[in-house]
């Protein structure tokens, strides 16, 4: 029970990560941003035990951290 009450406030906070609005980026800059963002999303979801859900060849799939890809 002692552990239960020892969560610091900081542990509940998330942080923004936008240094420049993608809406104001030039095409090349936006491409780089999208690539970085895709990598971030992938790493984030896998780190919290969730799969990445996306369209693959017209079907919705879930890709897991261990490499499995399942139709959903």
């Amino acid at each position, binding site marked *: 029970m002692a*552990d*239960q009450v020892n*969560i610091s*406030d900081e*542990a*509940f*906070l*998330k*942080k*923004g*990560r*936008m*240094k420049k*609005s*993608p*809406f104001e980026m030039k095409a090349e800059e936006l491409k780089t941003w*999208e690539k970085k*963002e*895709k990598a*971030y*999303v992938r790493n*984030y*979801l896998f780190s*919290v*035990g*969730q*799969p990445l*859900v*996306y*369209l693959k060849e017209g079907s*919705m799939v*879930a890709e897991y951290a261990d490499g499995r890809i399942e139709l*959903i």
Partner: protein
Amino acid sequence: MANIYIIAGPPGIGKSTSGGAVIPNDLTILDPDQIADRYKKNGFADYKDIGNLKFNELVKRELFKGNDFGIELNLGYQSHYDFVKSIKNFNKDNTIDVILFFTDDINLCFKRAEIRHQSGLHLVSPTTIKEMYQNTLPLLKTNFLQISSLTAVNITAGDSPKIVLQYYKKGRRLLMIKELPEWLANDLKGFLESGGDD
């Protein structure tokens, strides 16, 4: 004066995953679902109630400090806007900047929410998702008076989130891409072009 960013959109749209990408660097974001999930992981049986209390406490802390900060809120029910109103009333000079994540494909929300629950996180029923999805745009228009700016982020299953429109109430400035998704083109665009008060 503080800028308060509301990361909005129906369950499963990707607010928690991608919301940080459109919030200024290092700004605090408060996510009630994430707070409740953290209590759940730490063994609290009443994690939802205690999570809500903690969320409210942290929002108050930021308001009293006068900091800019972000919160995640579906904005799918009137009660969510009532909460936003209470934040706005704390200091009328504060701005409410809504960043709306939305999609033409509700199925994407269903699938992501289902998978999220299977992975041990919070459950939102398809009925609730559908209700919030259908409520989102009508409620946004009804409550538009509370909002200082709107950023619309289009979500598709294949691509990264894309900012497709920005509207600033001050000066009635509307910026958008040429090819808008249906949810904006069919409804919200006209509303914003008429100044957001039709």
